[in-house]
């Protein structure tokens, strides 16, 4: 992220926050921040630094569940797209069988999780994928037949990898975590998930 774009986002975030204000909006926001800081304690792998927001989190909190204005959204997407690191070997598809395991795994990064333990993507919490898994959520769109509908060209592969790596690069204030950017998943795990979505042998595409 360049310094100028950072400044621009910050300015926009101030505008967004200013949209729906009453006189003491700033005071309430300050008190909310103070309440937050005084209400948590570090536990396990989760330190208090997890309450420190980056610009994207700050802007997306300020819009309070609404879609941000177009230019702000574009800015968020642009800065997040710049964070995507594609694999150096150029290979975007891993092993869909591992991908399925990662999609099922809900653990990782919670204060109750052991730091060396498994870290999953928990895709099924929000998406339908393999038709044999009935326990799927609907916060995100169904990804059943994702690859069958889109094909398996290089562009689709790059988009899919990047979407998992940093969802905000394509949809500002998306509900989906930024798995690569925030260091939740490894590059290999993201490759495996890309394969789960695109491999013609994957149950997702049956």
């Amino acid at each position: 992220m360049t310094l100028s774009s950072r400044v621009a986002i910050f300015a926009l975030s101030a505008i967004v926050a200013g949209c729906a204000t009453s006189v003491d909006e700033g005071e309430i926001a300050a008190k909310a921040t103070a309440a937050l800081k005084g209400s948590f304690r570090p536990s396990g792998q989760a330190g208090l630094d997890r309450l420190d927001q980056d610009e994207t989190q700050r802007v997306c909190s300020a819009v309070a569940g609404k879609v941000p204005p177009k230019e702000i959204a574009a800015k968020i997407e642009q800065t997040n797209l710049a964070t995507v690191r594609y694999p150096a070997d150029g290979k975007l598809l891993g092993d869909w069988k591992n991908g399925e395991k990662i999609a099922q795994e809900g653990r990782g990064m919670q204060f109750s999780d052991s730091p060396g333990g498994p870290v999953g993507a928990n895709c099924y919490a929000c998406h339908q994928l393999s038709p044999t898994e009935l326990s799927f959520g609907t916060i995100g769109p169904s990804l059943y037949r994702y690859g069958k509908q889109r094909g398996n060209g290089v562009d689709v592969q790059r988009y899919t990898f990047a979407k998992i790596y940093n969802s905000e690069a394509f949809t500002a204030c998306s509900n989906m975590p930024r798995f690569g950017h925030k260091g939740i998943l490894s590059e290999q795990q993201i490759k495996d998930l890309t394969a789960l979505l695109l491999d013609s042998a994957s149950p997702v595409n049956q």
Partner: protein
Amino acid sequence: MINRRRRKVLKSGGSAALLGVFAAAGWVGPAEAQSQWNKTAFDSHGLPETMKALGAGDPTPSKDVVFFQTPEIAENGAVVPIGITSNLPKTESIAILIEKNPNILAAVFDLPAGTEATVSTRVKMAQSSNIHALVKADGRYYVATKEVKVTLGGCGG
């Protein structure tokens, strides 16, 4: 108070013979003294082995044994409601067997005359499995089977 005293006495004594004495003294009901626990059946693993331990051999499938309040899908395997009714005359007992549990037999209910042939309880299921309702009626064994699927929980665990 009574409970505490009774428990102390039972802890120090504990043998079946002693229970008999208490029963005679009217401290415990007659059935308490008689009640036994079929260790062989509860420790059994395979379905045929468990049926054998219960003395059921090869029970006859029956439409007169009916599940009620038993969902096809359980949100959580820790608590799966099971209701069983037998419409067979002279029903003496109802047992619940969960085929894919480490130990198949979950419970046996003995029903004296005057007690209706219907019980409802909740069981744990290790995974999706067939559940067998085994009924002893007029000295013979009957069975009904229902599949119950167990789903995963929510996020994170």
